[in-house]
């Protein structure tokens, strides 16, 4: 069973049980937690700090904090949310240490409207181009490859909202932005990805 499927079938009780075993110093509980959550934590870390090497350090720091702070997990949030919160805190200090210039967050918002606010160059239909099922498979592969093209601030929100499926209020709290800001970053990220996918399918330059 893949980690993703295993995660989908997990209940809060499963997590609580693992945490209790980790508290008791059970190494197999640590292995189980790492197997389940490390791939997702690395993906989120990479989306936050923009570099694979730093992201790996951040996940190691996070696991250390988890092992040392496991007494503090109270089960009020899901384990995934708790792990992500710790990770995002670590990632923020790592980003500070690195003093990364960072990519500017002025990614092109789709500005394809004329003065009246109507479409100047309307989106080309996708469904007519290829069979729907093939299209869905193609998109799932391509969108993953295109994700690193987003500015980190947008990518992080897209990962938390659309890849991890966390609710808007939780995500805004986790990354420390207002609800409105969360929405803007999400919208820009999705719009940019849509635009890149469209370019991919030969919609052509704006």
């Amino acid at each position, binding site marked *: 069973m893949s980690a993703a499927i295993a995660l989908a079938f997990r209940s809060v009780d499963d997590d609580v049980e693992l945490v209790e075993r980790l508290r008791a110093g059970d*190494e197999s509980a640590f292995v189980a937690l790492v197997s389940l959550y490390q791939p997702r934590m690395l993906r989120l870390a990479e989306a936050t700090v923009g570099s694979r090497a730093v992201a790996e350090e951040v996940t190691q720091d996070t696991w250390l904090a988890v092992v040392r702070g496991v007494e503090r997990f109270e089960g009020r949030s899901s384990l995934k949310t708790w792990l992500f919160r710790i990770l995002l805190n670590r990632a923020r200090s790592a980003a500070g240490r690195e003093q990364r210039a960072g990519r500017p967050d002025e990614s092109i918002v789709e500005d394809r409207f004329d003065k009246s606010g109507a479409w100047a160059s309307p*989106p080309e239909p996708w469904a007519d181009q290829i069979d729907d099922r093939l299209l869905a498979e193609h*998109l799932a592969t391509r969108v*993953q490859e295109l994700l690193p093209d987003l500015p980190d601030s947008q990518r992080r929100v897209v990962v938390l909202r659309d890849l991890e499926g966390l609710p*808007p209020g939780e995500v805004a709290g986790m990354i420390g932005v207002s609800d409105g800001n969360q929405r803007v970053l999400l919208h820009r990220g999705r719009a940019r990805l849509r635009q890149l996918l469209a370019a991919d399918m030969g919609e052509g330059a704006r």
Partner: protein
Amino acid sequence: MRFWRRRRALVCRQAVALMADYLDGRLAPRDLQRLEHHLAACPHCSEYLAQLRATIDALGHAEPEALTDEALDELVGLYRRWRAEA
């Protein structure tokens, strides 16, 4: 009166701006009605919304890179060191 009516109808740019909250089911009833009214009449915005949905759906299927045995071994090695130090 005519001015009031014009203000109520959305242009495409505004319709697109409402789509994030629409997809989250968080639009106020008045905006929801205006957006749905616009979508019913505008094939371009409807296509755009369908493409946004396809993009989100594709993102939902994106699997993280699988954990390698080496990466797992490295973390378990660190765990043992942390436990020994603690």
